[in-house]
């Protein structure tokens, strides 16, 4: 098992081919059954969202922290490259989209976008805000 940087957070360890090779205690229930599998095969659509950051952390050899939206959740992820090519991933859930009603969707989406705005790259979010405004104007 990897040396942990942040003992209190859930974490997984990836090998150099992005296979899950280690799981921290707080991630055991979700990721324990996935040990040995490639991360991207377990979470469809996640590769283009996360892999560029993981590759950047491996290339630089330095820990990298970013905020990302996936599967209705906004999380802060810290990717820590280890000496042997493995990558330790810690995460903290920051927000979850509430799709129950349009009101709760708009409110939780606003919260999620505010968190993501910390990261810049606002084009996609502006497109989404525009779509929501159109829906609002159409009723």
């Amino acid at each position: 098992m990897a040396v942990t940087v942040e003992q209190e957070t859930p974490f997984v360890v990836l090998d150099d081919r992005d296979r899950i090779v280690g799981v921290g205690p707080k991630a055991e229930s979700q990721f324990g059954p996935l040990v040995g599998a490639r991360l991207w095969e377990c979470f469809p659509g996640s590769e283009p969202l996360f892999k560029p950051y993981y590759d950047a952390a491996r290339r630089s050899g330095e820990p990298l922290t970013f905020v990302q939206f996936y599967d209705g959740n906004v999380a802060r992820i810290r990717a820590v490259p280890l000496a042997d090519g493995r990558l330790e991933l810690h995460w903290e859930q920051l927000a979850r989209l509430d799709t129950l009603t349009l009101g709760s969707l708009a409110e939780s989406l606003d919260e999620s976008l505010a968190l993501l705005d910390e990261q810049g790259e606002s084009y996609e979010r502006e497109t989404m805000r525009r779509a929501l405004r159109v829906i609002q104007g159409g009723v």
Partner: protein
Amino acid sequence: MSPGTADTTRSSAPGAYFVLDDDDRVVHLSREFHDTRGRGVGHVLWDHLPRAREIYGPSFAEARATGRPVETTIFYAGRLKRVLAIPGGDGLAVHVENLAELDVTSLATLTRSLERLDAVLADRASALPDRRSHASLQALP
């Protein structure tokens, strides 16, 4: 809604439906609902669907009060649905058709699904004679 319009509305009702008694207790489910809602028979609809009453309730009340079918387009639990409430001697038959669904995999899929939802709404707005049917969507701030 004229009698002729009501007949047309009934004939175009979605196949998936459930029937409520006067206390909003589920007394019957069509086959399409059995897998997901089969255990709901005998229970009050709102007990298992958080905040659903504020979304569905007004059109149910209108159908019961007028004795005529009421068609609405609502958004609930990530799905845009066509809902047709038809009052009758056995209770209120509520027909439901899913029109569009949010895809929250990524911001890109969410954006595309919001745009699909908007397009469906535009179609529905032109098809429905009564804009009150969109009341539930006015929850959007």
